[in-house]
């Protein structure tokens, strides 16, 4: 029996149709995933199920039935009685969604205060039960802590516990694991699956098929406001009808790069490189070799020291101990190293046009003024952007365009080594694949040596020749990507691999 029914839901804002005729049903004990990229209308669909569409949105549907009650004509106060009680929400960013000034216990108990008439002691007991049900370690101490004292994964668990407090029949999870590390993500996904198995209807919203395949029974694929394909998990994965679905699935699975033989000399040798910030070690005793023309992948979770290592290679940070030994190029000069930042929006001066930023980079690289305009156009073409886009400011570009522009700027200095810090983690899957292909093409065309830093094992595997796996500042495993993936030695690598597949 379906506990959530949405029929022919359409939402338009300012005359633009953002959700167009979406229909689906969710039964108790079932997990239905809505998959799509940014702008597909999936979060707006979720908002409509909670009566939380933004002001000015025109919502129409032929049915919106939550737990047997028609909700289309609900007033605000009727919605308030339903939200947190019959339908719960788990939002993407637990740090933002939890009140920073309230203890976890109070936060979780809030739906109980609103919707249930319990004594203080009963509430406390129920809160403990809830924390136990989401497998929060040490629930009675965690209850008295503030959100910032919890790790990302534990915060997400707390958020799920608070969504479950009112025992809702429907739980909507909007990108609940996007901000989490791979191994933590696996745990939270498993928890959501357990919640569905325990009899709650779960609507799981995500852009990532890798996450969806671990939890969902059925899948709706959305694009530009429409459901373009739906079916059971197995149907969609095995035989997708739409090319777009196939692209999305392909973007979530990456085959490790083939071994390539007969490649260049060592460019850089790191010997026992260590770095600490205020006494806390960030990178400890890292030794590795970077080979010319190859891509060295650095993979690890947040706080593993991968970004610090990359920044030392670029020269922004100085190692406390150890040595980064650069070998001279064939022409006997020093290697030029460039960095592509994780967040291209922050990496460009927001007041400057892309062209001006590129010209600055060219000027710094010694290109004479007269040649700069032509070089800007050439760089834009090289990263597959139309030169007209250079007249825009960073905020006027899409995420993918910005990242391409950031790569173009790094190329302006004509580098030998390109260090890429999470270059694609903020991008939608299909855009991500295009940027990865561009990087491959640039590597072949320019003979670039690359260092690719990422938390995403699949992506690292697809683009790297060699890989370093980092945990707590230590390189726990390294070697050719194919062999590391085929036969991981360290338990952490094994866990990472298991979490990613």
């Amino acid at each position, binding site marked *: 029996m379906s506990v959530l029914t949405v029929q022919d839901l359409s939402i338009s804002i300012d005359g633009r149709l953002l959700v167009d005729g979406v229909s689906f049903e969710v039964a108790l004990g079932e997990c239905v995933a809505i998959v799509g990229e940014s702008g597909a209308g999936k979060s707006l669909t979720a908002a409509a199920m909670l009566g939380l569409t933004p002001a000015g949105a025109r919502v129409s549907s032929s049915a919106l039935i939550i737990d047997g009650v028609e909700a289309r004509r609900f007033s605000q106060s009727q919605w308030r009685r339903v939200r947190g009680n019959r339908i719960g929400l788990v939002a993407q960013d637990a740090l933002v969604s939890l009140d920073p000034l309230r203890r976890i216990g109070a936060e979780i108990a809030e739906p109980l205060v609103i919707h249930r008439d319990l004594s203080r002691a009963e509430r406390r007991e129920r809160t403990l039960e809830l924390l136990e049900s989401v497998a929060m370690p040490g629930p009675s101490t965690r209850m008295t802590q503030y959100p910032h004292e919890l790790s990302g994964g534990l915060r997400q668990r707390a958020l799920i516990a608070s969504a479950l407090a009112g025992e809702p029949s429907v739980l909507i999870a909007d990108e609940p694991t996007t901000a989490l590390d791979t191994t933590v993500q696996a745990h939270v996904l498993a928890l959501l699956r357990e919640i569905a198995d325990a009899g709650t209807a779960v609507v799981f919203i995500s852009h990532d098929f890798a996450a969806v395949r671990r939890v969902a029974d059925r899948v709706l694929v959305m694009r530009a406001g429409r459901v373009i394909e739906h079916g059971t998990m197995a149907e969609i994965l095995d035989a997708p009808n739409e090319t777009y679905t196939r692209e999305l699935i392909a973007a979530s699975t990456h085959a490790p790069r083939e071994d390539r033989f007969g490649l260049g000399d060592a460019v850089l040798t790191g010997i026992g490189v260590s770095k600490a910030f205020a006494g806390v070690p960030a990178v400890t005793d890292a030794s590795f070799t970077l080979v010319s023309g190859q891509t060295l992948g650095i993979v690890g979770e947040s706080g593993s020291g991968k970004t610090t290592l990359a920044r030392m290679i*670029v*020269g*922004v940070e100085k190692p406390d101990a150890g040595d980064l030994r650069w070998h001279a190029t064939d022409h006997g000069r020093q290697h030029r190293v*460039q*960095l592509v*930042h994780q*967040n291209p929006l*922050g*990496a*460009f*001066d*927001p*007041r400057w046009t892309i062209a001006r930023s590129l010209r*600055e*980079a060219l*000027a*710094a*690289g010694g290109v004479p003024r007269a040649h700069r305009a032509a070089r800007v156009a050439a760089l834009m073409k090289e990263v597959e952007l139309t030169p007209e886009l250079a007249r825009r400011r960073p905020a006027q570009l899409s995420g993918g365009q910005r990242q391409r522009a950031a790569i173009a*700027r790094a190329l*302006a*200095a004509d580098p030998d080594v390109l260090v890429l810090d999470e270059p694609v983690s903020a991008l939608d899957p299909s855009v991500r694949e295009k940027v990865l292909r561009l990087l491959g093409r640039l590597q072949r065309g320019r003979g670039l040596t690359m260092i690719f830093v990422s938390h995403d094992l699949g992506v690292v595997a697809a683009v790297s020749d060699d890989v370093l796996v980092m945990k707590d500042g230590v390189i726990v495993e390294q070697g050719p990507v194919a062999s590391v993936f085929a036969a991981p030695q360290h338990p952490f690598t094994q866990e990472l691999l298991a979490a990613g597949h």
Partner: protein
Amino acid sequence: MSASRRMLMAAALLVLAVIAAMALFPQLIATADPLRTDVRSALEAPSAAHLFGTDQSGRDVFSRVVHGAGRSVGIGVLATALAVVVGLIVGALAGVAPRPIDGATMRINDVLMAFPEFLVALVVVAILGPGAINVAIAVTIAAIPVYVRLARVQTRTLVLTEHVEAARILGVPRVQAFTRHVVPGVLGSLSVLATIGIGSSILAVAGLSFLGLGPVEPVPEWGLMLSGGRNVLGTAWWISVFPGIAITLTVISATIVGRNLRAQAEGHLS
């Protein structure tokens, strides 16, 4: 922005446009000579001939309000602009200076900030002596500390941003990266604060003039006119009330525009 706030913003901009026109081209708006005395027509109530009436010496109050705009508003705007420039230089340098220098600068700044702006201006005028230029200097000095503080914080934030680091990695020299990427960003935040600060600077100028520390008679200046009419407020209210309205409208309008600009700038950043 809601419809009512948009209306308010439009009204405020209109007032400022009128004031600016008065300051720049007073003779086009008020044809009467603001300085010409005519004892026979002293203390006349507002009429068609004298829109705002006449004062004790028979001078046209309307003409004096219009001609006073340039001085009253001009000194306030000039003082704010100077304060922004000084604040930017001191604050930005303190933001990148070694710790002892930064600390000393900011403690001096704290002491200045601890006193109300008007009190600081009053003390400075007391030291320098009365006069239009000295009032401008006093109001400038009183306004500077706020800008120093904001400029320092903004500098310290911007120096650490990725785009400044990106420029450094590309090989842009340190000083150039600072002047090109950091300083314009700091100036942006300061100018938003300045639009709000103009209002209080104008008020401070008028206040000092009212106390007789600014321009001296017969120069038309709003604060001075306010003070000139205060003894006959019961019989000839128009002498003080019209310059008072001019000051009030200007300050309120400048503040409304400033707050809207700030809201927009903050919305733009987030």
